[in-house]
């Protein structure tokens, strides 16, 4: 069962081949048997899942099921779920049970999807390796000594090891695309504003965007369809028409103009990954696409800019975690100040603290212009690079991550090196564009990703381009041994 795509599962459920309850039990069993080695889940919500499966079966029997009815998925533990703990990978929220549902959770629930549980993640989504989680690192199913990437590492590893048929994630600087690449699955970050941020615990509000992690572009289309759309509770939600993402998956790619930015193929790129990406590009050539050289001259500014913008916003977004109304409060505070500094000092891990401190510094009196304002200006330059590139090309392609999965512990003591692993994904968030990572051929037995970047609200085009590759190659079908 667990090897089937979402569309296949949906067909089987409707055809009565098996029930959602059976399917959910099967996945719960897999989680029970396999997750010990991976640590993908912070919370497995078995009872709720079985209840939801029963309701889905009811709908299936009544014949009013949608494409996601009865499909078992997992939510990144950053999405608020009422009645089920939402930890955000932090000690700060280890005791937090949200009194309300995130829009994404509500929408997937309304679509009939069944939540199996909540997936592990870097603490407050701050990390590229899933090592900053309060609940311990997630292991990459392709090599359990290696990281799955982050911050949506739990979701990526769970989908790759087929502990769920799809999962949600969030992407602030590459947090869906990079773990998708490192785990050999498909992960999409939609256009900023496409997926509601309501109930998605904020890291950096102007960059955060939710999206799907799945085993194929076709599955991504199904999951994304249920996630997107205008939400009146999110002021930054885009009131744009939502196309039928599955309808255009098979469109012909002849004449598609693919831009390869030279800055994405520089000396920092692992040559094996570079070759795998070029092999994927060749497949597109064969399909009749036109490949042109393009340039994104300010690429080098992306990481520095990001490490001002994201920490600045996070330093303010995370001020609400103060021990007063929810979440962690230190033992026996002897004053208000003591409650603040110890609750926050003990509740947050080192990476979160680093970013809060950097952000606080960047916004503080005397430094605002040099850091925050400057970063907003360089952000503009980065965004303009894409604008110019999209005058001449339909999509931009390149590697998702400069390397395959690195070893657990390898970079955890060197924040700056860790930050540079997001060099190809970060600019997309700064510009607010949609991007998708799809598996290339394995590189030395490990997955790598091709990143496809589109213009604003071109999710349908990206899914179409990704899907066509998956029709002519079987790279996305590779599965890690032992799972």
């Amino acid at each position, binding site marked *: 069962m667990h090897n089937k795509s979402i569309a296949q599962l949906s067909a089987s459920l409707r055809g009565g081949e098996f029930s959602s309850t059976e399917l959910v039990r099967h996945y719960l069993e897999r989680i029970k048997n396999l997750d010990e080695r991976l640590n993908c889940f912070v919370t497995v919500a078995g009872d709720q899942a079985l209840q939801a499966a029963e309701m889905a079966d009811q709908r299936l029997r009544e014949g009013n099921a949608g494409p996601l009815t009865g499909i078992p998925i997992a939510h990144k533990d950053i*999405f*608020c779920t009422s009645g089920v703990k*939402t930890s*955000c990978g932090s000690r700060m*929220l280890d005791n*937090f049970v*949200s*009194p*309300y549902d*995130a829009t994404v959770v509500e929408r997937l629930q309304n679509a009939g999807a069944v939540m199996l549980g909540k997936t592990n993640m870097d603490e407050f989504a701050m990390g590229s390796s899933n090592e900053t989680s309060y609940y311990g690192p997630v292991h990459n199913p392709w090599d359990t000594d290696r990281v799955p990437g982050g911050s949506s590492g739990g979701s990526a590893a769970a989908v790759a090891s087929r502990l769920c048929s799809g999962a949600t994630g969030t992407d602030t600087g590459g947090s869906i695309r990079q773990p998708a690449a490192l785990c050999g699955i498909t992960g999409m970050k939609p256009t900023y504003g496409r997926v509601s*941020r*309501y*109930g*998605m*615990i*904020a890291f*950096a*509000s*102007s960059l955060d965007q939710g999206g799907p992690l799945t085993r194929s572009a076709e599955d991504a289309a199904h999951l994304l369809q249920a996630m997107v759309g205008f939400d*009146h*509770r*999110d*002021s*930054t939600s885009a009131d744009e028409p939502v196309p039928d993402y599955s309808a255009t998956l098979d469109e012909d790619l002849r004449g598609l103009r693919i831009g390869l930015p030279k800055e994405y193929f520089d000396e920092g790129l692992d040559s094996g990954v570079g070759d795998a990406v070029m092999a994927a590009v060749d497949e597109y050539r064969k399909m009749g696409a036109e490949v042109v050289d393009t340039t994104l001259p300010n690429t080098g500014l992306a990481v520095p800019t990001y490490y001002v913008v994201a920490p*600045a*916003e996070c*330093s*303010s977004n995370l*001020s*609400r*975690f*103060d021990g*007063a*109304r*929810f*979440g962690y409060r230190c033992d026996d505070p002897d004053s*208000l100040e003591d409650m*603040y500094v110890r609750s926050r000092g003990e509740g947050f891990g080192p990476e979160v603290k680093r970013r809060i401190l950097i952000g*606080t510094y960047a*916004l*503080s*009196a005397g430094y*605002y212009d040099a850091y*925050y304002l400057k970063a907003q200006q360089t952000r503009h330059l980065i965004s303009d690079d894409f604008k110019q590139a999209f005058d001449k090309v339909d999509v931009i392609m390149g590697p998702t991550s400069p390397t395959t999965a690195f070893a657990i512990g390898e970079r955890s003591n060197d924040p700056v090196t860790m930050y540079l692993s997001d060099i190809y994904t970060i600019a997309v968030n700064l510009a607010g564009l949609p991007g998708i990572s799809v598996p290339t051929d394995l590189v030395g037995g490990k997955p790598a990703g091709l990143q496809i970047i589109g213009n604003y609200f071109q999710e349908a085009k990206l899914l179409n381009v990704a899907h066509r590759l998956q029709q002519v190659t079987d790279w996305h079908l590779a599965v890690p041994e032992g799972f």
Partner: protein
Amino acid sequence: MQWETVIGLEIHAQLATRSKIFSGASTAFGAEPNTQACNVDLGLPGVLPVLNREAVRMAVRFGVAIEAELGRRSVFARKNYFYPDLPKGYQISQFELPVVGRGQVEILQDDGTAKTIGVTRAHLEEDAGKSLHEDFHGLTGIDLNRAGTPLLEIVSEPDMRSAREAVAYARKIHQVVRYLGICDGNMQEGSFRMDANVSVRPYGDELGTRAELKNLNSFRFLEKAINFEVERQIDRLESGAEVVQETRLYDADKDETRSMRSKEEANDYRYFPDPDLLPVELDDSFIASAVKDMPELPDAKRQRFGQEYGLTAYDAQLLTGSEALADYFESAAREAGDPKLAANWTNGAVSAALNKGGLDITSSPVTASMLGVMLKRIVDGTISGKIAKQVFEGMWSGDGTADEVIEAKGLKQITDGGAIEKIVADVIAANPRQVENYLAAEAAKQQKMLGFFVGQVMKQSRGKANPRQVNELLTKKLRG
């Protein structure tokens, strides 16, 4: 040395919206603690703000009323600091680009001349909750019902030179926001709060170091606190000490200001544009619809009262104090057909009775139309102005309309010439010595002495004789 006082005010007016500025929770005052604090107001993880249209509309109305430049593109910013009544650890406010830019209002000074006070800006922001310090086992209780209530912070230029001017300005802003219907102005409930920046300097010098006075919840306290603070600063400077830039709290019981925190501990608020909110763009149609039912504002009304009704500047000023009072006056005047008389009565007897009873004009037991009818009875000679006082008292204590009171108490003026003639004859007959003196006096003196006879006649008639007729008859009879 001659010292000059420099004052600027920051006024926080709670906007009279139904729901909060960024959430759909109610803003009603006085609910049980935390029953009107929704997940957005509590700053729960994942929640997001969505701006209330009405709050923007109200800010625009204020901007137009003070002839301000409107911020066609205004931006919400976060003001970051930690305090338990501030759930998110930041207040959503406006910083660089406020919704209302530079404007102005006019105040009347004590000598009756006008002075223009500049308004630097007015911006939208969210109110904080309340900390309750009663004893919860040595802990503080937090009520977040008020958190997220929309505020318009109105910042003046340092244009005021005395506590009286500051009060006149504050009253003017209070009057404007109430006319516009954007704030209920209730100071006890904290709907209208004032902070004053006060400094002194030798005349013509550069600005001195200022202190910010907080907790001024009435116009009287505003005046007293500034006066105390000015004295304090002058004392310090004259004794060779310096004024420290600090926040000071006014203690009404002791009538003094005392230091809250000094500049060293001043917060670094780390303002930056709120990424959860987008720029607010005011287009012409929004502005047009916001101001389409603008009321006549106090200044315009005051001028019209002067021109249309021939009222003195002082009367017009008093009558336009609130829209309700102005409306009261105008309908009484219309009913009576005599605006000056209506103005005298509204500012006189009506105001005095309201003050005595601690009542507002809207709850006056004598309605505008009741007063108008009574005044009409003065105009048409049914009662005298003096008798009218009794009629008014009767109406006030619930004895009915003017006509009912006049009828029931028999207060109708005696205009029957024969009846008055008889009383006049009786008074002349009863006072031969006074008549003799009168006749012996010079003409100029006679006029004065006539008062005695008039008084006697009025007394005999129990005030009901028509005074004009009494005068005429007496003069004729005495000389005759």
